[in-house]
């Protein structure tokens, strides 16, 4: 939804106004749908499985299509490799339009560009694991020794070493799906379609397979289109998610966009059960840093900042704006009283710093350990924002924090304002340090 228009060569699969209707006269159904009739209104003519689905899948992306059973997601994925013909609309795979081409050309596209993993594995039961994995290569016409050698490397890759000569029926469900995945990987196509690939597996094995899929994807850079009815799976795997309902795509966006900005009540209702802590990242909940000074600013500026914002700590940056640590009001106060000017000796590094893509679930522990806000820094250690405990709780609990006029985001001041003012007034003139004062 929020994508800028990508360059065409970076698009792996493109679906353009796809319709699929089942019935005696599917084209008439599509015509009525285009004229604005609803799915219920055409139910006497037949079933509209997919209605006006358009999306683009970028190369190397995991694109998840999520919806409950009957939402048309399985039909949609089968149109992407031409297993089912589209009633209307076009599908482009790697720049080739596959709608309306001959059966032979379609087979060619499937051999070279797009392979598939099935919900119930769909292995050939009379063939050994290695022959199953080599199946795509066999169809591509590769010689036996060559394809078996390649299949063996894939078997090792998906963690089935030692099982090559077993029949699928001798493997557990998770292992069978590894064979299914291996078969698709061996075919060495750019695009992988996965139709509820992990839905038939035990939860523990499913999690393991999801993690392995992400590793494999990172290593091999495949474009993956993944179908699931499990929102947590969608959120875990997807770079982007398309939510389907009654044949229509109701929202396309990143997991966070869908979670934080659902397009309608249906999506909102759907995502309310999601484990937000695993989906939301530090970047999506962090607050701007208000209480911050540079290292060279000195204790008086630090104290002034804390007084103005009424907090007990302030974040300290190095000269290159990288995150140095925090200082506490008590330490600063002592320093000011003692007349010292170098903050460095009292900078504490007990504030945790995390990367923006860290999941919230990983912030809980540091947040418990220390009352200090967690600093969010980028790869160059630049401070991007902070996550106080309250913000973390509010994000996990899906409570909006910006209802009150002044959210409390920092530990409150432990020293009264008047006391600080007195001390600032008692000691030397602080005009020198004013320039590096508080930044909002």
């Amino acid at each position, binding site marked *: 939804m929020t994508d800028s228009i990508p360059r065409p060569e970076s698009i792996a699969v493109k679906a353009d106004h796809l319709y699929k209707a089942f019935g005696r006269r599917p084209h008439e159904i599509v015509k009525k749908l285009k004229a604005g009739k609803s799915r219920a209104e055409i139910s006497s003519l037949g079933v509209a499985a997919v209605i006006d689905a358009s999306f683009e899948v970028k190369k190397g992306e995991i694109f998840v299509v999520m919806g409950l059973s009957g939402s048309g997601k399985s039909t949609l994925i*089968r149109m992407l490799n031409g297993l089912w013909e589209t009633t209307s609309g076009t599908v482009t795979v790697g720049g080739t339009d596959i709608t309306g081409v001959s059966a032979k050309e379609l087979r060619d596209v499937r051999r070279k560009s797009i392979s598939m993993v099935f919900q119930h594995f*769909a292995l050939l039961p009379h063939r050994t694991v290695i022959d199953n994995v080599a199946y795509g290569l066999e*169809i591509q016409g590769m010689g036996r020794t060559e394809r078996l050698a390649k299949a063996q490397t894939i078997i090792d890759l998906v963690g089935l070493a030692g099982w090559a000569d077993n029949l699928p029926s001798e493997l557990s469900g998770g292992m069978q799906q590894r064979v299914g995945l291996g078969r698709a990987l061996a075919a060495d196509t750019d695009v992988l379609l996965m139709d509820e690939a992990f839905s038939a597996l035990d939860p523990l094995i499913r999690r393991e397979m999801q993690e392995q899929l992400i590793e494999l994807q990172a290593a091999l850079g495949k474009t993956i289109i993944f179908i699931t009815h499990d929102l947590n799976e969608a959120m875990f795997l997807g770079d982007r998610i398309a939510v389907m309902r009654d044949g229509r795509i109701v929202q396309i966006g990143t997991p966070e966009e869908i979670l934080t900005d659902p397009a309608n009540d249906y999506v909102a209702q759907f995502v309310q059960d999601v484990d937000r802590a695993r989906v939301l990242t530090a970047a999506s909940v962090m607050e701007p840093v208000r209480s911050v000074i540079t290292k060279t600013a000195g204790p008086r500026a630090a104290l002034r900042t804390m007084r103005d914002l009424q907090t007990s700590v302030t974040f300290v940056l190095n000269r290159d704006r990288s995150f140095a640590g925090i200082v506490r009001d008590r330490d600063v106060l002592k320093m000011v009283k003692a007349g010292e000017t170098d903050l460095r000796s009292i900078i504490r590094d007990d504030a945790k710093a995390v990367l923006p893509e860290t999941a919230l679930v990983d912030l809980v522990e540091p947040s418990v350990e220390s009352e200090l806000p967690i600093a969010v820094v980028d790869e160059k250690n630049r401070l991007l924002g902070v996550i106080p405990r309250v913000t973390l709780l509010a994000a996990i609990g899906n409570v909006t924090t910006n209802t009150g006029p002044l959210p409390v985001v920092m530990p409150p001041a432990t020293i009264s304002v008047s006391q600080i003012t007195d001390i600032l007034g008692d000691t030397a003139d602080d005009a020198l340090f004013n320039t590096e004062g508080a930044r909002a």
Partner: protein
Amino acid sequence: MNDFRLPLGSVVESFVDYITDTLGFLFVFIRALFDGAYESVEFLLGAPPFWAIMLVLGVLAFGIRGWKFAVGTVVGLLVILGVDQWENAMDTLALVLVASVLAIAISVPLGILAAKSTLASNIIRPVLDFMQTMPAFVYLIPALILFRVGVVPGIVATIIFAMAPGVRLTELGIRSVDQEVVEAGQAFGASPWRILRQIQLPLATPTIMAGINQVIMLSLSMVVISGMVGAGGLGAQVVASLNRIDIALGFEAGLAVVILAIFLDRITASLGSADSMGFFGNIRRVLRSRRATDGLASGAGTTRAPQPVGEPARV
């Protein structure tokens, strides 16, 4: 009202007359072909001494089902020999083999066609119903006219009567192959022919073999009827005993049919079981396992120890 009569019978009669006149050469050819096939199979079964045939069938029984069945086969064949029906039984076996092979050669491709095309299926199904339910004697009449007395009309009538389950079960077998596995073949770009050869036929084999088993059983049940048109063998013996009210001969010939039936049924049923990898595969496996377990109590050695399986493949 009673004067009116649908001229169905005479229409069929004139149709048979017509094809007899115009396509006579074709029937002469078919007759020669079937006759030749029957004669050669009969020669193969009849020319060697009985013990040679017994040995071959015994080994076959052992290779496919194990030693118990082999013993049973030899005992059964000895009974046939003992009631002096050996030659008749071999004639009948030849007839059944030729008719079954031809029926299978026709019915399996038809079944594949029916599985691939709903239109073909819709046409073939009522024809099969007709062929299967029309009393078998009725086929004998045009078959007699077209092929004259002898073994050929018996074979033709047997084929028509027996092929229905072959077609039906082949169609059923292929249609009930897991659609997802077929889709997997398609999704990797396999051609329809390759999907048929590598996915549908192998997975449908148990069902197709059940159909073939039925074809053979029905062929055997047609033996007696074929005997009426001069096919010889055990069928002729039964017909003769019926004419002479000869209980002894009737029972002996009938028992011989039963023994053949049991033998053929068990053999083909075993070939259709899921573990089977085809007949020669079984023999090879037996030889291998006997070599491997030499000195051990190997038993029949035909069953493969299944390895422990994790969770079931399907939820």
